[in-house]
């Protein structure tokens, strides 16, 4: 072992021996730091976890969805927009749907009518049938559509179109969240061969922040002759709610953490000032025996740092255990938990700096001289 490492180990041992010998001050620092971790995790931690859960729920595609609808002639909405939109890096999925026509179950004359739509995709989309080489006259139905049509949850049968021709049900559609508004869903997969008018195009972006840009691109690609016949719907309101939740809860959480940190630092500083005042003769003796100011400061800061680290670990473990016992309480992100512990230790060490400097400035003559 090198002499430097031996010396550092000696400083560590001395700081720990001092911590053990100053039980009251050590216990108070540990309680304050552990209490800070528990308080932050049970307040701001809960808030942060709830915020994450709410935002994650909102972000589950609904705020990232753009719905373009052709409401009349000259909308410009046709299959030519699908491929360019699908090539955008900001795009996660693009689905084109033709005009709807009602179909019924061949086996149930006069049965419930369900809207069927031609389905066009630029690339495979999870849950939807592949449109690269569809079987002519085949259809896919969702579970809801299967029951509506009297197929009793099965995914085979025959559907009657208004023209009198039939469609064979050959597969199931697992309706993605962003197409839920079309349920009960019956689609007829079509291959994109030439430019075909569309009634609806649904675009899902990778991030809610891309919605505005992609919506603009979609409008430019459609280049409607009559802009009034092309409507573009985005989840603007949800986006605003998302921003509000993120902003309000984030601000509340940060304020709470900063407040608790400040109180923790103040309590640690007061506690250590008390310790230094009570033991100023001890620090005067150390200085008289040859301790530099740096050694006195290092001993006190290391002592507080190690005690705070143990206390932060214990406090964090206790808080997480409490949160785990509450089934309804979401757990905060691991990074948040670690950050709280690191902040607690940092605050305690920072708060210890002024008392440590005060201790290091004790005058041996004043402290040791017997009048």
């Amino acid at each position, binding site marked *: 072992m090198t*002499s430097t490492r*031996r*010396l550092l*180990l*000696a*400083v560590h*041992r*001395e700081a720990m*021996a001092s911590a053990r*010998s*100053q039980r009251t001050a050590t216990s108070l620092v540990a309680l304050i730091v552990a209490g800070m971790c528990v308080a932050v995790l049970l307040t701001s931690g809960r808030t942060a976890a709830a915020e994450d859960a709410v935002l994650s729920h909102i972000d589950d595609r609904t705020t990232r969805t753009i719905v373009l609808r052709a409401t009349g002639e000259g909308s410009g909405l046709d299959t030519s927009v699908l491929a360019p939109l699908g090539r955008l890096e900001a795009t996660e999925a693009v689905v084109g749907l033709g005009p709807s026509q009602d179909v019924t179950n061949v086996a149930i004359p006069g049965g419930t009518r369900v809207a069927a739509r031609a389905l066009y995709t630029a690339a495979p989309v999870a849950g939807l049938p592949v449109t690269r080489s569809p079987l002519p006259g085949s259809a896919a139905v969702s579970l809801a559509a299967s029951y509506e049509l009297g197929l009793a949850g099965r995914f085979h049968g025959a559907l009657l179109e208004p023209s009198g021709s039939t469609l064979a049900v050959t597969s199931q559609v697992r309706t993605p969240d962003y197409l839920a508004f079309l349920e009960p869903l019956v689609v007829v997969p079509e291959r994109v061969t030439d430019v075909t008018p569309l009634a609806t195009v649904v675009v899902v972006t990778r991030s809610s922040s891309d919605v505005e840009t992609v919506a603009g691109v979609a409008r430019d690609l459609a280049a409607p002759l009559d802009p009034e016949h092309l409507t573009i719907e985005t989840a603007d309101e949800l986006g605003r709610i998302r921003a509000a939740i993120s902003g309000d809860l984030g601000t509340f959480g940060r304020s709470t953490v900063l407040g608790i940190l400040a109180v923790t630092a103040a309590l640690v500083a007061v506690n250590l000032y008390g310790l230094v005042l009570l033991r100023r*003769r*001890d620090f005067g*003796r*150390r*200085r*008289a*025996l*040859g*301790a*530099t*100011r*740096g*050694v006195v400061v290092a001993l006190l800061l290391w002592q507080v740092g190690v005690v705070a680290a143990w206390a932060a670990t214990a406090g964090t473990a206790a808080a997480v255990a409490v949160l785990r016992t509450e089934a309804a309480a979401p757990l905060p992100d691991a990074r948040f938990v670690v950050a709280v512990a690191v902040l607690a230790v940092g605050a305690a060490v920072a708060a210890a700096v002024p008392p440590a400097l005060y201790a290091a400035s004790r*005058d*041996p*003559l004043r402290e*040791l*001289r*017997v009048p």
Partner: protein
Amino acid sequence: MTTREITLRADDITFGYVRDRPVLTRWSAEFPAGRITSITGPSGRGKSTLLYLLGLMVRPTSGRVLLDGSPVHDAGDRTRARLRASVFGFVFQDAALDPTRTVLDNVTESALYRGEDPRALAGRAHSLMERFGVAVPGDSRPGQVSGGQAQRIALCRALLGDPPLLLADEPTGNLDPGSARTVLDAFVQHARDGGTVVLVTHDPRLAAECDEHIRL
């Protein structure tokens, strides 16, 4: 054991706790290696203050403190602290032990300030404690020993690093005659080994045993 020989000199030093009321005025003396010097005088004449000045714990208002001819009184705080740790051994008037630590911790404390591992000096600490009759159990605290034992523990602490300069403030004030003899013998031995010893004392018997005498 031979101790490194260093001559300590106070040159024309003046010091006062209150401006215009100096405790020492233009005071000079030399403390040669291998000699024991006693400083005596009535209370309030600055005997202990002189010891703290010589021990680099406080700077004189004017004048110089020299080690082997080199001025050290105006050195930086870090240098003076390092000199206190490595060149000086101190025995304070009331032992000044840490009551929350073990006796062994107290004896080995100053090793840390010299950049040494206190644990590595535990053996020497034990032999010094045996020599001065304070070989108490390892986990004993200063509160569990008598005043005389505390003073001898403080002497063990002062001698642990075999310092060239030993400064002691009333080292036998709390000791019975037998213990005082043991302590005095230790000072004599330290001086014979080449060390410089400066004692502040009211005890005429102790002063009489010293090689040099200064009366304030």
